[in-house]
Each structure stands twice: as structure tokens, then as C-alpha cells.
């Protein structure tokens, strides 16, 4: 398969008044087209930093990041982000929320508009297009937020703890929903989470990071022989517990 993203030996440091923080020491991995990669690691280890480097928001001190063969040197138009919470604007209708990314990037064209409208139609939001976020359920809002990022047709979608603000039950349903949508759209995705089951069930490979400064401790390929794989089905599979135990040990979490 085509390698869409190649991260090689990157190091990221933050400069602050009281010193330098080395967030990422030496991280390399690559992502194929349509692949889902999860990144787990202790909190504060540099997961968000890694995404932000891939997006070109945070510059790397060493190493390089190639996106479709081109080096990422500034904020990239080929990347879209999903952050914690849906961040829909309460004063905009659902359709106008969905078009926000296109609007900001100056990409409002006939073609892009109909693409966004088709996404709304495909994922059951068309009849809610003139409603406001407060009139929708949490799951629907998350869908709208997802469509807002898909509408700009990113090469790689970054999800930074995108579901952590949802309650447990909603999260199970929403991750399942998002997974199916992303697979159907053949979207490549990089998913940061602190939830081990979420990382296993959502992705093809799980990258486990060490504590700060982050290096890769291990990469697990999660294979489930399920025909139409989905997060909820994976959770029921016998192999699931095995992966969980391995990653849990690798993370080496202690209360101290």
C-alpha cells in the first residue's frame, strides 16, 4: 500500500522562559493510505505534540515528516483535526457549522458544497441541516463535527482525544459510528487516546509511547478475524483481552 505519511526520527522541543522541554526524543513510523493508527502513552508524554508536529503547527527540531512525499514545513492544508468535544458554534446552524472549515480555508466551491451536502445526506444529518447544535443529541453533534473535518477532504485526519469529553456509553456508540464513517470514506486517521480499549478497537496498529520525552516503546498490529470489523465487535473478540494486557504492561502505569 501507499505510504501517505512518513515520520522519521523526529525530535520536538518547546522553549519556555524557565527552560527547554524535550517533548519527543526520537519517533519514527509510517502510515499507509486508509490505515488507522492509534497513539497511546502516559499523559503529558507528547501525544498531542506529535499530532501537532504532523499537522505542521509545531516545528520539529530534528528529523522530518513527509506527507504524500512532501516535507511538512508549515500548517498543512492536507490535514484536519478533531479535538476534544465537538466545538460546534451554537449560533450557527448544523449546515453552516459543517461548512466552517471550507469557509476558513476559502474553499467554498460548487463542488465542495455538494460534497459536504452529500456527507450530510449520507450520515443522516440532512434533515437537521437548519437546526442548531443545542437541538441535537451528543452523538449527532459529534457526527456533525466529523463531517466538518471531512468536508475539507484531508489526506490525514487527526483525532486528539476526540471522544474523551463524552460519557462512557455515548463514547462506545460514537466511536463505533465514527469508525464506520471513516472506513467508508477511506479516510486515513491518526488517533490519540488515553483509553486502551479504544485504541485497540479503533485502529489497525497501536503505537505505545514512553513517558516524556516520548520514544516508541512498541507498535502492535491488532488483527481480528472479523469480516466487517467495527469497534464494538472487536471488544467482544477473544483476542481483545490479550492485546489489552500486552499494552497495559507496556505502558507500565503505577500509582505512586
Amino acid at each position, binding site marked *: 500500500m501507499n505510504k501517505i505519511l512518513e515520520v522519521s526520527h523526529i525530535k520536538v522541543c518547546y522553549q519556555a522562559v524557565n527552560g527547554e522541554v524535550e517533548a519527543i526524543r526520537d519517533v519514527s513510523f509510517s502510515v499507509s493510505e486508509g490505515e488507522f493508527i492509534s497513539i497511546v502513552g502516559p499523559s503529558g508524554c507528547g501525544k498531542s505534540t506529535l499530532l501537532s508536529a504532523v499537522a505542521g503547527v509545531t516545528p520539529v527540531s530534528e528529523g522530518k515528516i513527509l506527507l504524500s512525499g512532501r516535507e511538512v514545513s508549515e500548517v498543512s492544508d492536507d490535514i484536519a483535526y478533531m479535538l476534544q468535544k465537538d466545538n460546534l458554534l*451554537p*449560533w450557527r446552524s448544523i449546515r453552516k457549522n459543517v461548512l466552517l472549515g471550507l469557509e476558513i480555508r476559502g474553499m467554498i466551491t460548487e463542488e465542495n458544497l455538494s460534497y459536504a451536502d452529500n456527507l450530510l445526506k449520507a450520515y443522516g444529518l440532512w434533515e437537521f441541516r437548519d437546526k442548531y447544535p*443545542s*437541538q441535537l443529541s451528543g452523538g449527532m453533534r459529534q457526527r456533525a463535527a466529523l463531517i466538518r473535518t471531512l468536508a475539507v477532504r484531508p489526506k490525514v485526519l487527526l483525532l486528539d482525544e476526540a471522544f474523551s469529553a463524552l460519557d462512557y456509553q455515548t463514547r462506545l456508540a460514537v466511536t463505533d459510528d465514527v469508525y464506520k464513517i471513516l472506513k467508508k470514506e477511506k479516510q486515513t486517521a491518526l488517533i490519540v487516546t488515553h483509553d486502551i480499549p479504544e485504541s485497540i478497537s479503533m485502529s489497525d496498529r497501536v503505537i505505545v509511547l514512553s513517558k516524556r520525552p516520548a520514544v516508541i516503546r512498541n507498535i502492535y498490529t491488532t488483527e481480528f478475524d472479523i469480516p466487517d470489523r467495527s469497534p464494538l465487535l472487536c471488544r467482544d473478540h477473544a483476542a481483545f483481552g490479550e492485546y489489552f494486557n500486552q499494552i497495559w504492561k507496556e505502558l507500565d502505569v503505577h500509582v505512586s
Partner: protein
Amino acid sequence: MYHNEISKERKIYLKKERRNKIAVTLCRVFFIVAFIAVWEIGGHLGFIDTFVLSQPSRILGVFADFKENQLLLHIGTTLFETAVGFLLGVVIGCFLAVLLWWSPFLSKVSEPYLVILNSLPKIALGPVIIIWAGAGTRAIIFMALAISMIVTVLEMLNGFNNTDKELIRMLETFKANRLQIFTKIVLPYNIETLFNSLKINIGLSLVGVIAGEFLVSKAGLGYLIVYGGQVFKMDLVMASVLILAAAAAILYEVIVITQKLALKYINHR
């Protein structure tokens, strides 16, 4: 609601609430009526000195003679000055707030000055303002502006800076520039802040105008109060104060209603 019928407990609760409300209203009416009655009758019986304290019926007399007293001219003058001072204060204040939000550097630099200017009693600047702006309407408007502007700047800037950081980050992930962040997020997010600052401002502008009219003026409610005091026409003074109270309440209410309409239209929270 699971039942169509109201439960007994609920009935008792509702009754109690209603009674309480009626009692409060009755007490309010009673106090104002009693106050006016004692004032009026006391004046007639002679245990209240109407020369110093005036009397409700004599205040009414001033209202009845509104033509002779040129009340409309004075009210109009004060309202005009207040409106101009208020609008200028809001426009200039908001403009400065946007500027300071735009440039965190400028904001840092100006912070101590703003704090000092804010706590300075602006009325102390009265004589200076007269020298700068001339002894006339301009000085009065200047006074209103001086009092209301800094508060607007601080209030709006505070609102801008407290805009939900997550929303701004979301926009930044789409590579939004500062202007887009302002127009798409910061401004709509702060409509309520704007109205809150308008509410504070309308009162402050009125304070500034009256203070200005005390110092220099040939017309206006402030002028009427000073003039009435000088020639011991307490009826005129009291009538002016009443008009002022009513004007302040009405202006405030106008903003409250506008806010309700605007929020209903813009904000679908």
C-alpha cells in the same frame, strides 16, 4: 409531566408561591403610597417643611407647568448628550478593546495605565475637560465619554480574552487568521458581554452628563437641579430628580429588551 392532574402537594406549593408574590407586590405599593401620603399630609399639617423638602402636589405642579418650565427642552438636552456620550463611549471603547485583543503586546503595555485610569474618579478631571473642550455641550459629552469609555474597554477586552479557547483552537486547525478568529468566533461569542457593557455604560453616561451639567451648562436636568438649588425652588429640584430616575430606568430597560431580541435572533443556545 406524568400526570395530567396536579398533585395536592404541588397545589399547596403553587398557592404558597402565589401568595408570596402578591405579598411582596402589596408591600411595595403600600410603602410608596404611605411615603407619598405622609409627605403630602405632613406638608399640609406643617410638621414637614415644604420649603426644604418640597411636596408631592407641588412636584406635580411643576410637571403640569412643563411648558413654562421648559421641561421638554431640559429632558431633550440631557438625553441628547447622554446618547452621544454613550454611543461614542461604546464605539471608541469597543474599537480600543479590539485593538488590544489583536495585539497582546499592546495589551500588556497598556495594562497598568488602564487600571489607573479606571480607578481614577473621572469627575476630578472636570475643570481640565472644560479647559480642553470649552465650557459647553462638548465638555459635557467629553465627561460622559471619560466615565464610560475605560469601563467598556476593560469589560470587552476581558470578554474577548475569555472566549472559549477550544473553539479558537478548532478554528486554528483550519489555519484561520486573526481576522477570521475575531469575526467567526470572538465577536459572536461576546454578544452578551457587549450588552452587559451597554447596560453599565448607559448609567455611567448619565452620571457623566449630569456631572458635566453641574459644572457647565445652560440647559439639561443637571442644570435644572443646580439652578433649582441656587434659587431654592425645591419643587423643581425634586421634579428633575424624579425625571432623571425615570429616564435612567427607561434607558436601561430599552437595552434589556434589545438584548433579549438580539440574543433570541443570534444565539440559539
